[in-house]
């Protein structure tokens, strides 16, 4: 294909997207617009954290112990250099939140990606091949579902800690979290994709592909996969909120990110310890950001589910 | 006086590119005991007309023009709960799929008795008698025994007979039958058609029979209304419309149906396809496919007019009075 036809195709795809029902629906939904603006702000804050932050909270040399436990700037005794106050180690809460948000989102996205890849592959395989393969995959999924997600995550975490040498714990923490959260969440994707695959497999376009000698792999990847991805997008969105929350919970319980590299959950844990001495700002601000993030992501996911479901429109 | 008359009915669906008319200016009337066939391609508006009459237009669609009169009473402006009382009691409905029209967890008898008691002042025992009687009338063998069985214990054809009994047991004056034979096999279809005719004759109920199958219309209906792109293009007695159609669409349609006993080399065909509701041309909607297209057809929409029995919406028949 020549360049011009290629660019024409891209342009028409873009035009189609802007003209689609989803785009129209988006422009007419307040929830979708507000939550996506909020998400964009939070994503931008996380992405540009090093530029937006006033200090690097991981760099101990930048911390001035004299400035510890200062209240937010607008409260009496506050310091204009520390907008949201400082914690007991004199870390700027505002900067910690930016860096923490960054870590929370990295863990969230990576674990969702892991869960989606594992879940989609297994669901597609089970739904398409059927029989013993399908049975085995779905039994594993059933067993996994009968444990609370947090328990599975704790288990993975515990195993990882047992296997790794103690001096590697801090570095490995983020990977352990991604693995733990990702492995607890793939079942949802697998079940959804399996169901849709079993429906698509019966359709005549798949029979036509079989008649025309397309291999099983080719049918799964080129024919069925594009047609089962719609619901996956919805699950992935809602799952992102869940993953961020699970990460926060694990970190709050002390099995997540270490205090030297605090995520939002770690910040809340640290702040919680000082709450009774009246230092409310260390726990309140990270909590507000966490709630805002999860709420916005969930609202967007709910909207997406309704928008993609023609029956509800 | 007509039992039901529909006048200039227009149903619109607001969409993202403005409002789209599913049906436009549909007028028709039906007398007691008459079977009126509504025929057309998918999307022509025949089912929408039926749904409008029983007050079951899916939102956001709504009637934006015209009205529906049942025995002289305006029914399109009634509140939902008033319309619910009319449905079943005065207008019955038979749908395409007998399986989804019946409640699978109730016995056939329970469903019939409930419907009878909702609309008629009868005791439980009397209602049961009535229900058995109806099952017998629609041709269910051994109705005394079968009344206490569940819908899944019936075959497809028997199930559709039960649906017909359910639609008629409250003794409505009008029944809307939307593709009642489409889901059935040919040999069963013939039985259901004959049953509908027999019941219309016996009970004096009027039937609006919505179908895409000209054969079913020919076998069943007294009059037929042919719909195209949301409008009635021709309406008249079945024998006349089917043997000597006036509208070019009806003519093309009748010619394109393969017939037993004739094996032409090429079937006469209408070129192109019916426009979607949001892309109907100005003027006559059939003009782009019409072999007799004139200049006027491109910009002026023909009205439905004609004699006492037969009406056609076409500029051709306007100029040459039939």
């Amino acid at each position, binding site marked *: 294909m020549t360049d011009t036809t290629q660019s024409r195709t891209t342009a028409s795809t873009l035009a189609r997207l802007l003209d689609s029902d989803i785009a129209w629906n988006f422009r007419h939904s307040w929830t979708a617009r507000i939550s996506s603006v909020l998400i964009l702000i939070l994503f931008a804050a996380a992405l540009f954290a090093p530029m937006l932050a006033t200090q690097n909270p991981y760099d101990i040399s930048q911390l001035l112990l004299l400035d510890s436990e200062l209240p937010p700037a607008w409260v009496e005794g506050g310091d204009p250099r520390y907008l949201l106050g400082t914690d007991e180690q004199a870390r700027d809460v505002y900067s910690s939140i930016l860096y923490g948000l960054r870590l929370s989102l990295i863990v969230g996205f990576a674990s969702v990606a892991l869960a989606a890849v594992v879940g989609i592959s297994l669901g597609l395989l089970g739904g398409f091949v059927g029989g013993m393969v399908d049975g085995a995959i779905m039994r594993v999924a059933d067993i996994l579902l009968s444990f609370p997600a947090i328990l599975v995550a704790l288990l993975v975490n515990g195993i990882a800690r047992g296997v790794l040498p103690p001096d590697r714990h801090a570095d490995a923490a983020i990977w352990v979290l991604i693995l733990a959260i990702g492995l607890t969440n793939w079942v949802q994707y697998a079940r959804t994709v399996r169901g849709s695959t079993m429906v698509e497999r019966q359709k005549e376009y798949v029979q036509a592909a079989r008649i025309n*000698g397309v291999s099983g792999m080719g049918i799964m990847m080129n024919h069925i996969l594009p047609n089962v991805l719609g619901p996956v997008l919805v699950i992935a969105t809602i799952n992102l909120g869940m993953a961020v929350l699970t990460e926060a919970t694990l970190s709050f319980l002390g099995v997540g990110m270490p205090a030297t590299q605090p995520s939002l959950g770690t910040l809340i844990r640290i702040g919680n310890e000082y709450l009774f001495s009246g230092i409310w700002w260390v726990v309140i601000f990270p909590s507000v950001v966490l709630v805002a993030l999860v709420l916005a992501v969930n609202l967007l996911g709910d909207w997406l589910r309704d928008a993609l479901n023609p029956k509800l429109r | 006086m007509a039992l039901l008359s529909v006048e200039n009915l227009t149903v619109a669906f607001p969409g993202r590119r403005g409002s789209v008319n599913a049906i436009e200016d549909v007028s028709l009337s039906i007398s007691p005991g008459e079977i009126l066939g509504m025929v057309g391609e998918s999307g022509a508006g025949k089912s929408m007309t039926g749904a409008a009459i029983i007050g079951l237009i899916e939102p956001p669609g709504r009637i934006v023009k015209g009205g529906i009169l049942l025995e002289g009473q305006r029914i399109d402006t009634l509140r939902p709960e008033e319309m619910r009382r009319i449905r079943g009691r005065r207008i019955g409905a038979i749908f395409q799929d007998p399986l989804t029209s019946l409640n699978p967890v109730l016995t056939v008898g329970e469903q019939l008795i409930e419907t009878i008691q909702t609309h008629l002042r009868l005791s439980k025992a009397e209602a049961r008698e009535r229900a058995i009687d109806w099952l017998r009338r629609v041709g269910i063998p051994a109705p005394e025994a079968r009344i206490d069985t569940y819908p899944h214990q019936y075959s497809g054809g028997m199930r559709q007979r039960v649906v017909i009994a359910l639609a008629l047991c409250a003794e409505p004056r009008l029944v809307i039958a939307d593709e009642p034979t489409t889901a059935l*096999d040919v040999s069963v279809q*013939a039985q259901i058609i004959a049953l509908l*005719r027999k019941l219309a004759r016996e009970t004096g109920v009027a039937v609006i029979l919505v179908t895409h199958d000209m054969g079913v219309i020919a076998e069943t209906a007294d009059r037929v209304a042919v719909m195209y792109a949301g409008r009635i293009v021709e309406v008249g007695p079945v024998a006349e419309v089917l043997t000597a159609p006036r509208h070019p669409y009806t003519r093309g349609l009748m010619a394109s149906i*393969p017939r037993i006993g004739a094996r032409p080399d090429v079937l006469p065909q209408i070129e192109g396809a019916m426009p979607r509701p949001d892309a109907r041309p100005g003027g006559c909607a059939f003009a782009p496919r019409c072999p007799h297209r004139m200049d006027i057809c491109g910009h002026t929409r023909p009205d439905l007019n004609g004699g006492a029995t037969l009406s056609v919406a076409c500029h051709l028949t306007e100029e040459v009075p039939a």
Partner: protein
Amino acid sequence: MRDPILTVSGLKKSFDLSQPFVTRLMKGGERRYVHAVDGVDFSIERGTTLSLVGESGCGKSTVAKLLMGLTRPTGGSIRFDGHELAGIRAGQPSVVRRRMQMIFQDPYASLNPRWRVARIIGEPMKSFATHPDPVARRKEVDRLLEFVGLSAADGEKFPHEFSGGQRQRISIARAISTKPEFLVCDEPTSALDVSVQAQILNLMRELQKELGLTYLFISHDLAVVNYISDQIGVMYLGRLVELASAERIFSTPQHPYTRLLLETVPDITMAHRDMDRPAGEVPNPITPPPGCHFNPRCPLVNDRCRAEAPAFRVHGDAQVRCHAVQEGRSDPKKLRKVG
């Protein structure tokens, strides 16, 4: 027959409907099978059309799937131009499979909604490597689009941008892209509106003439079958009950079931016949009646019909599976009186 391209003999397919083994062991159920296709024989001469008609559950669509290798036969043989196909599955790009293609019933489900039309039509040419070069393939796709009455620019569009009739044209273009000799058409017009049906039927006849195609046409609509076929096979509960030329079937139907079918077709020329007679319905295929499957609905039934399944025998210039016809007790006049 002079030059049959396809010969099917003793073709059988049964599906296992039994409960899982453990459930059977505990509740004591028996193994249950449904014989969807129960010994079917026919052959099709090159360049002609054989139609299979019958009501739902008669097995006609299963025959189509068996021929295309979408499901494996339980028994019997399928010979295509001298090659035995009963063991070859679909999906093996063998030379023989390229020569057989299929057109499906539902124009909305038979085209991948996420693919552009050019890719859909090009897929068989790519996978059977008849046009491995993308540029040459695209050229061929454009030619095919115009051949079936669409335009080359339509290749860039998605299926949802087309009407049902246009989609069926796309489906036909895909089917003829590998230059097949034999097409299985499974109710190709039953999802279409009447005015569009004529377009597709005419296109199919034109293609047959121009490309010398052989058709196996599956339908429940006798009028359509009458227009398109040379030979007609009538199926009932997995068995062929009558096989004859189209003229013969419509002028002098022999099997009581064929007669019932012909009588009950709603016809625009025969208004207001009264047909509310107890003609019954197709029984559950899991538990078909013993003997001749049609015996509970047959006006000519006797004890032999209830006990012994009739054989598929040549009778005149037709093949019929009926004791009454073979014994000469199927007087048409008497039949009508009973009906």
